[in-house]
């Protein structure tokens, strides 16, 4: 069960990786997109950290809402509304139970982007993650495997869909950042 402090720790872990891997995420987005994913996420997480650091929150849903609004207003690319809606849906759960939170996040991403598994998007990470977390089996290896699985897929949603077959052989940047977010959660849970 996550509390407000755990969520703060989660975001701090995620922000650290995003700032560190900013160039790498944009590189992943270059052959199959517009090369901005790292910058988008870094800008968004900067806003998240400014909105939550040293701030008091009554409960887990209220910090999730603040995170959602920062991402929606600052990311600027598709990942903004997608992650924003994920956090909005997690806020609606009303508690910090990851077994409910991860499926809610997935449902939010599906609702917003209308992607299904196999289309080479972040959905290809959230779908297995959601199944694994139900079985108490979400691990770093499981997450990495899901991220890696996007490499051989052909993109049919988002920017990468414009390059069609040429998207094969590249890991999806949003899948990678989703992997970072989920691993940051595991780390926060300890």
């Amino acid at each position, binding site marked *: 069960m996550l509390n407000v402090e755990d969520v703060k720790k989660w975001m701090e872990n995620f922000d650290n990786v995003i700032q560190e891997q900013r160039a790498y995420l944009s590189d992943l987005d270059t052959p199959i997109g517009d090369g901005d994913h790292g910058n988008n996420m870094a800008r968004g997480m900067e806003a998240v950290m400014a909105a939550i650091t040293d701030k008091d929150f009554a409960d887990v849903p209220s910090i999730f809402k603040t995170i959602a609004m920062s991402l929606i*207003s600052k990311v*600027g*690319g*598709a990942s*903004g*509304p997608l992650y924003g809606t994920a956090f909005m849906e997690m806020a609606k759960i009303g508690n910090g139970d990851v077994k409910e939170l991860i499926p809610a996040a997935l449902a939010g991403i599906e609702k*917003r*982007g209308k992607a299904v598994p196999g289309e080479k998007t972040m959905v290809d990470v959230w779908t297995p993650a959601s199944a694994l977390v139900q079985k108490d089996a979400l691990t770093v290896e499981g997450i990495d495997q899901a991220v890696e699985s996007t490499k051989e897929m052909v993109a049919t949603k*988002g920017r990468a869909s414009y390059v069609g077959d040429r998207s094969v052989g590249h890991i999806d940047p949003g899948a990678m950042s989703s992997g970072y977010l989920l691993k940051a959660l595991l780390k926060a849970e300890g």
Partner: protein
Amino acid sequence: MEYGVVIVSHVAEIAAGVKRLIEQVAKDVSVTTAGGLEDGGVGTDMARIMTAFEENKADKILAFYDLGSAKMNLEMAIEMSDKEVHLYDTALVESAYTAAALLQVNTKLEDVEKQLKELKVK
């Protein structure tokens, strides 16, 4: 006029350019835009779309967009707006032009939409 047009693009100049193009044939139709990010960068921003809805003189809006996140941000803005907004998955320039030209001569929405259907590309 009953209906207005909102243009959403990743790039400010594209949005402004489409507006300029369609105003030539629709001088009484309110056209507002949300182009690019606040800092001038390339992208789309829900708050800027909300502003384009609010600044539009009409209470009913036909919205057109270019790529990807523009649609997601439009849908979020629509969920939050009090205005009646119709969103089309059509070729941006051609469909915004078609809609504006038809609205200028008071074409019924139903008939505008018939024309727009042909321009669906996404």
